[in-house]
């Protein structure tokens, strides 16, 4: 009897799909965004050739760079089944802090500005992380609170004053517009952030643990993952990147007041969601979030070029989010069905 049982089991050959299912789904998702981008750019360009002029492309890339840096941080937090609503305020605080620093010390090199922005952001992020970790309060509530708190600090500090471009050192403003080999510095920095975050999330234990935590917090705890520490770290990174985005913002626009970056947080969440980062954690990639940021920026500037009322932009972004969520749901159902069928032996 035993012998026949063994035979029955071993007779079934091992099945391999060869490719990772999750990777395939992600690829489908990201190619969808790329496709939407191509259609959008092609259509807009036929309506108005100015859309593909050097200056227009430059503007889009610079805008994307700032949004993408924020979206990478947001994606990291969202993958752990949390959310960071304070990024717009952190950007504002960091931009104002760096602007003030550069205005008062015109001789400082740009790298100091970047480090200062990262530091301000990291401190804000750490506060978020500690509150979420030890307060046992949902991240949505904590960061909604700090959204107002950090903005309040900016207003208190600025007291209505504005930092204008003519007060900032030329080296800093040049950093906002200069290119190396034709690629603007801001874009290079955003790409660097994107690649580094992408590699860590994909190929390092720490990154994989973030996905695990978002996929099942209880299981992550049982697997011995330091959930609390990792959560704090995710918020710290998101804050630091928001701080970096503040530096980029100040350098690009040159004019900073206490309201800089107001309302950015929702654009950032939208970019991540459109890019396929699940609000419930555990799936998505920073590449997707970056593409989402690019898509939202391109839509904004396409509407301007096409002379469509800015009002429509918000409606279109909203429709896009619903479409993205609907598409995700559809793919999930399809995959579940396919998996069920593959499992059966009929």
């Amino acid at each position, binding site marked *: *009897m*035993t012998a*026949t*049982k*063994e035979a*029955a*089991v*071993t007779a*079934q*050959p*091992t*099945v*391999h*799909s*060869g*490719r*990772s*299912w*999750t990777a395939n789904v992600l690829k489908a998702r990201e190619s969808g965004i790329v496709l939407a981008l191509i259609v959008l750019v092609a259509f807009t360009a036929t309506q108005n050739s100015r859309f593909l002029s050097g200056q227009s492309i430059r503007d889009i890339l610079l805008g994307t760079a700032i949004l993408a840096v924020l979206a990478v941080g947001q994606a990291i937090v969202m993958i752990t089944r949390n959310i960071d609503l304070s990024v717009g305020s952190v950007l504002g605080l960091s931009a104002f802090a760096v602007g003030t620093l550069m205005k008062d010390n015109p001789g400082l090199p740009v790298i100091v500005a970047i480090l200062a922005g990262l530091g301000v952001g990291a401190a804000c992020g750490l506060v978020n992380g500690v509150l979420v970790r030890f307060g046992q309060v949902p991240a949505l509530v904590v960061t909604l609170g700090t959204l107002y708190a950090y903005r309040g600090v900016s207003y208190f500090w600025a007291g209505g004053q504005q930092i204008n471009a003519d007060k900032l050192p030329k080296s800093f403003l040049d950093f906002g517009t200069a290119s190396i080999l034709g690629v603007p510095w801001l874009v290079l920095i955003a790409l660097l952030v994107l690649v580094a975050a992408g590699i860590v999330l994909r*190929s*390092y*234990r720490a990154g*994989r*643990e973030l*996905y*695990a935590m*978002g*996929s*099942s917090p*209880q*299981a*992550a*705890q*049982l*697997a*011995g*993952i*330091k959930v609390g520490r990792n959560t704090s770290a995710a918020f710290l990174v998101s804050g630091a990147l928001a701080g970096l985005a503040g530096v980029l913002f100040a350098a690009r626009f040159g004019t900073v007041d206490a309201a800089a970056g107001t309302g950015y947080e929702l654009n950032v969440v939208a970019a991540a969601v459109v890019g396929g980062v*699940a609000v419930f954690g*555990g*799936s998505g990639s920073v590449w997707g979030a970056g593409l989402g940021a690019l898509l939202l920026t391109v839509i904004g500037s396409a509407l301007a070029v096409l002379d469509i009322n800015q009002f429509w932009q918000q409606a279109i972004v909203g429709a896009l989010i619903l479409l993205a969520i609907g598409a995700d749901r559809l793919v999930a159902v399809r*995959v*579940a069905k396919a*998996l*069920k*069928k*593959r*499992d*059966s*032996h*009929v």
Partner: protein
Amino acid sequence: MTRPRPGRAPLLEVRGVTKSFGAVAAVAGVSFGLHAGEAHALVGENGAGKSTIVKMLAGVHKPDDGTLLLDGEPVEFGSPADAKAAGIAVIYQEPTLFPDLSVEENIVMGRHPRKSLGRIDRAAIRAEAERLFARLGVRIDPARPARGLSIADQQIVEIAKALSADARVLVMDEPTAALTRIEVERLFSVARALRQEGAAIMFISHRFEEITELCQRVTIMRDGKHVSSDALEDVTVGEMVKRMVGRDLDALFPKQDVEPGAVVLEVEGLAREGVFRDISFSVRAGEIVAFAGLVGSGRSEVVQAVFGVDERDAGIVKVSGKKLKPHSSRAAMAAGMALVPEDRRQQGLIMDLSIERNVTLPRSRALSKLGFLTGASERQEARRWTERLRTKYRRLGDPVGTLSGGNQQKVVLAKWLAMAPKVLIVDEPTRGIDVGTKAEVHRLMSSLAAEGVAVVMVSSELPEVLGMADRVLVMREGRIVAELPRAEATEDSVMFAAMGQGAAA
């Protein structure tokens, strides 16, 4: 290194541990030792405190009092990571997988093999998963996501996870509940190999034949207290049951003879692409019909389609001659059908609601007066059924999530039994239920049948199938391959049909 022999200082010792949740002492002053090279069974009724002991060994709970000793040295586990680092691997009662991640990554999570620059070595992960699955003799695609795996496959991944950790102490909390006989044998041969390599094993199960097969020593718990620890050959199964339950037990399969009445449930030509096909059967009032077969043969899927939870591609389901709308569990319930699902925690309970509310949920309309649910009628009904199933709880108003795993299952059973259905479908009626309640569930099923209920049962436990069913339908690869009346159903005939040895192969 000298390997300690059984009987000498234990590898891991539990000394006088106590753990309370609120006012209830889940575990009070329990002591026993796990020796290297020995498999140690921990038995007791649902809620006796077994899983609490497991969670203390795993570092999830800290004992309020008492100590854990590893190699004779007191240790304190502040977190599951500490326990893992100390070489303790745990297979939990409920699978704890990451649904979004691939199966292979689930296995190595937290211990990913690494290559240069600290990067994850994906090839090594794949090789590790394939090695483990080969050792366990199962075919699961390591690259597929864990989401959508059957319970049995989830449990196998859990086992692979524990094996992958190269543990010195392997703790298994009812790992076999969802597995077929073959998978259990595979698991046991691996466990024996580990034991011979000097690992200590703690094994929790409600199946005595498994305990006697694998273990050398047994500790019995009752109501959170330690009853006895003996070498297994010194105690009989009857003695163990008596100590667990604290009383003598009546027959385990109290099957009443019932004269079957009119046909109540008729299923014709039911099919679902890729899952099952040509499913036709009928059940009379007062009859108990069991679906037997290997896990994955499509039994659960058939009853889910009959009940209308899943869609079907073809076929007719009739209750008392009336055709049911496909893919509508609401219609099935209205026609008097009830389904107790296999995965009770996920499909059968609302964890944050109270016990009484959970029990009376499907009948909340019938119990309400003028549209309001009155606490009294709800409580009365809930008390009647939970007491009949001997559920252990503090107050009926407590959330279901606070109960132990086995007691949660009893609440699900109570919920559907309270509906007084015409057709009762039970998927694995006694999975994870202790021996005392098993007899009670069986008696209940039998008395429901005697009252004229048509009972359909899906079960992986052959003794239960043979002991309870009037007719056995054996499934293999999505089809009914044999229909055996009670007189012809034996362990051999059912297994032969299930494995494909009886049919023209």
